[in-house]
């Protein structure tokens, strides 16, 4: 790989503040042509913000940016794109209702002036597809594509714009292992042509696998820079977190008790009316954490929605504590003594514009404890809120503080406090630590294990394998709405689980 001394990107002294939070402080970053540089750091370290600044999406408060030796002033993404910088965000920037071709050509010049020239765009696209082996039907509507295919559309979109500096934000989070290795092959072929790639990730193994050089960010600052060949996953972990990671969580042996959740022959359709869950059978017992692993989009969301009463299954029975659950009714799920932690905190779990207190009572405001004859018992509600804020050590200005003023970790604590307040016999936690920093993550894990000790049965749905392995007494893998396999948490091998996750029976 030919590296020049002149970097293609040079950022220096970059500082970016959002209200109280300083996302980047005096950060310097260089990228050379023909290299894959990993930007490593835990959630909230400022990786994405830094790259959004390079992409012209955010304006920095201080600092200088040079692209290909020229000092630039980026006020919008178009300024970056015109200099060959492209960025693929974690949430893809695609219009679901439009075709692949439309998504790719939008914003580019047409040879027919103001009229679209889809025919020659198609030819150019097909040439790119052949060159990089990214096969996608140009006329498919984006919503019909899988996540992996949508990512290919994003890469094609960048290549179509002749991007030679490609930023990818956590690109593997949504991919199966096989798709990940495809992606890595594509990235390697890109840099062989002299392009450069910034690879944002918090996954050590991937970073060690794909990158030439690693820049580690912590709390908005660059803490280290290493050649990949001269470092180790262990060193990187210490740099990233700033202290030793807890190796594992203390968990006492407990024999599983009676079943608290019994799912029989469950069939669920997704929003596109396709099968999301097919003939699923599952049991969770007292004193047990059942970890459900799998790549996102294999039916986990739909399964949790059915359990929460947010979606009606087409067929099947759910029993909680051996009593049949009324389906498609959130109130029935609440009354069944289920602690509910939905994956979409902001959209589903919380009322962001209301107070912390109003979120605490969301599930129980109509219970006799908090109201009589339709009047709210304010004093009892205040006491309840103060107790939860204290017990869960929630950092907030008080029970009347507006919820959206809380940090991600504290938002999740609010939801956890609400879900666990009634000492539920079953807890369904869907992606409970997604997007949280390590401290908050450890806290949530600790609390879930405590609930297990108390006797609750826990269904932990997560696409984070580390979390699954750290917590689970038993692991099942969901693939295309079916259980691919089951293994005891203590003895399961990562290789086996990984194969199941990509749909390989072995």
């Amino acid at each position, binding site marked *: 790989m030919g590296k020049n001394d002149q970097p293609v990107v040079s950022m220096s002294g970059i500082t970016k503040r959002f209200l109280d939070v300083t996302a980047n402080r005096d950060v310097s970053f260089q990228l050379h042509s023909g290299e894959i540089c990993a930007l490593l750091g835990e959630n909230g370290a400022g990786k994405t913000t830094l790259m959004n600044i390079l992409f012209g999406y955010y304006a920095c408060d201080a600092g200088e940016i040079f692209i290909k030796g020229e000092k630039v002033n980026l*006020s919008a993404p178009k300024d970056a794109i015109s200099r060959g910088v492209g960025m693929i965000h974690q949430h893809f920037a695609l219009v679901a209702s439009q075709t692949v071709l439309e998504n790719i050509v939008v914003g580019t010049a047409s040879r027919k002036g103001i009229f679209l020239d889809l025919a020659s765009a198609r030819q150019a696209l097909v040439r790119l597809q052949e060159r990089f082996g990214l096969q996608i039907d140009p006329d498919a509507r984006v919503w019909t594509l899988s996540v992996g295919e949508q990512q290919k559309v994003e890469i094609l979109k960048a290549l179509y714009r002749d991007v030679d500096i490609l930023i990818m934000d956590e690109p593997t989070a949504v991919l199966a292992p096989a798709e990940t290795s495809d992606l890595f092959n594509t990235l390697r072929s890109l840099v062989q042509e002299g392009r450069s790639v910034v690879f944002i990730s918090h996954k050590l193994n991937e970073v060690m696998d794909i990158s030439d050089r690693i820049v580690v960010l912590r709390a908005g600052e660059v803490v280290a820079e290493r050649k990949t060949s001269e470092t180790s996953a262990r060193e990187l972990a210490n740099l990233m977190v700033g202290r030793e990671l807890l190796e594992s969580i203390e968990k006492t042996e407990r024999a599983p008790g009676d079943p608290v959740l019994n799912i029989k022959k469950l069939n669920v359709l997704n929003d596109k009316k396709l099968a999301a869950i097919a003939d699923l059978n599952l049991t969770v017992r007292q004193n047990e954490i059942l970890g459900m692993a799998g790549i996102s989009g294999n039916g986990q969301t739909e399964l949790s929605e059915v359990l*929460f009463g947010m979606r009606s299954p087409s067929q099947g029975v759910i029993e909680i504590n051996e009593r049949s659950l009324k389906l498609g009714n959130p109130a029935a799920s609440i009354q069944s003594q289920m602690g509910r932690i939905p994956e979409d905190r902001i959209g589903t779990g919380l009322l962001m514009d*209301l107070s912390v207190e109003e979120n605490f009572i*969301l*599930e129980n*405001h109509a219970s006799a404890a908090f109201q009589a004859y339709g009047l709210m018992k304010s004093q009892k509600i205040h006491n309840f809120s103060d107790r939860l804020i204290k017990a869960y050590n929630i950092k907030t200005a008080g029970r009347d503080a507006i919820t959206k003023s809380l940090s991600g970790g504290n938002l999740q604590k609010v939801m956890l406090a609400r879900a666990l307040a009634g000492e539920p016999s079953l807890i369904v936690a869907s992606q409970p630590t997604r997007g949280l920093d390590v401290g908050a993550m450890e806290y949530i894990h600790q609390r879930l294990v405590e609930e297990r000790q108390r006797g609750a049965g826990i269904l932990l749905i997560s696409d984070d394998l580390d979390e699954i392995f750290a917590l689970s007494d038993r692991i099942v893998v969901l693939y295309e709405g079916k259980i691919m396999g089951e293994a005891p948490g203590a003895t399961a091998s990562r290789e086996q689980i990984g194969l199941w996750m990509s749909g390989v029976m072995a």
Partner: protein
Amino acid sequence: MIRFRIIKRKPLPGWAKIVIPIAAILATLILAAIPILLAGGHLWKSYYYLFHGALGTRYNLLETFVKASPLLLTGLAVAFAFRAKFWNIGAEGQLLAGALAATVLGVNMGSIPPVLVLPVVIVGGFFAGGLWASIPALLKTKLKVDDVVSTLLLNYVMIHIMGALLFGPLQQPGSSWPRSSAIVEAACYPILMPRSRFHLGIIISFVAMLIIWFINKKTTFGYQAKAVGTNIRAAHFGGINTTSVILWTALISGGLAGLAGVGELCALQYRLIMDISPGYGYSGIVIAMLGNLHPVGVLFSSLFFSVIIVGAQTMSRMTGVPTYIAEVIQGMALMVMLIFLLFTEYKIKVQRK
């Protein structure tokens, strides 16, 4: 080059909630100078007559309360609905429905004990407005029909229902005008102050304001409506029956607008005419927004509006500025208030590059 960006600011202290509406009203009055001057009005004289006309004499002051009553009710109706994100733009039609029901009941109720007549008329008007509002609520919750459009269109349906009835079964025998017979005396709102039109409806609207404030603040229903308005998916997740909350919200909202219609009929007109409402239902939208959807805020903004409307009459008479200045000021007030509210959450940052 200088660039402006709108960015979030830290929350303002509590006093801002009071200062900002006042500042918005002042800014509106300053802006109103433009149309006044365009109309050739003398600025200070115009403002003097505006306020003198509304507040200067006992009669005028009481007239301002008379005007505020329907505005307060329609403002509350809209605010209550908007709080649950039920986009009720149909207060005008609901007001007419209330007036229509009150007419039917008020004209034909000679035979029941007089003390019962007024309660029946009021309750009937409330339910007529409420039921008319529940149609778009049902369409929204059951059939996903956009509530903005359906409530707007239903206003026109109600106007034409009223027109058909006033040219048909409800027309005063022997009259060629589209107007009904007069309601019986027992159905009229009593006048509470001598030598004025200060009537029972003003008290009713004030009590309604207190009740709505109580519902919002103290009841589980008030909490549920707020949750539905904030994030309907999260409210559903929390076990709230969102359909029922929206239907009840519509019923109460439409009922309040219906009461405004009852008041106009039973206290001022005594018979149904096509022009029973000069657009109170639409003014209610502005009043609700200006009052930040809070019942007390709605009270003050309805008073402000009635000052403008009543005062504009005098101002027009004395200076020749058309009375429609009142509508222009209403529209301006809404926009100024919106912009001011925006800057409680955001600020403009100037960047030089």
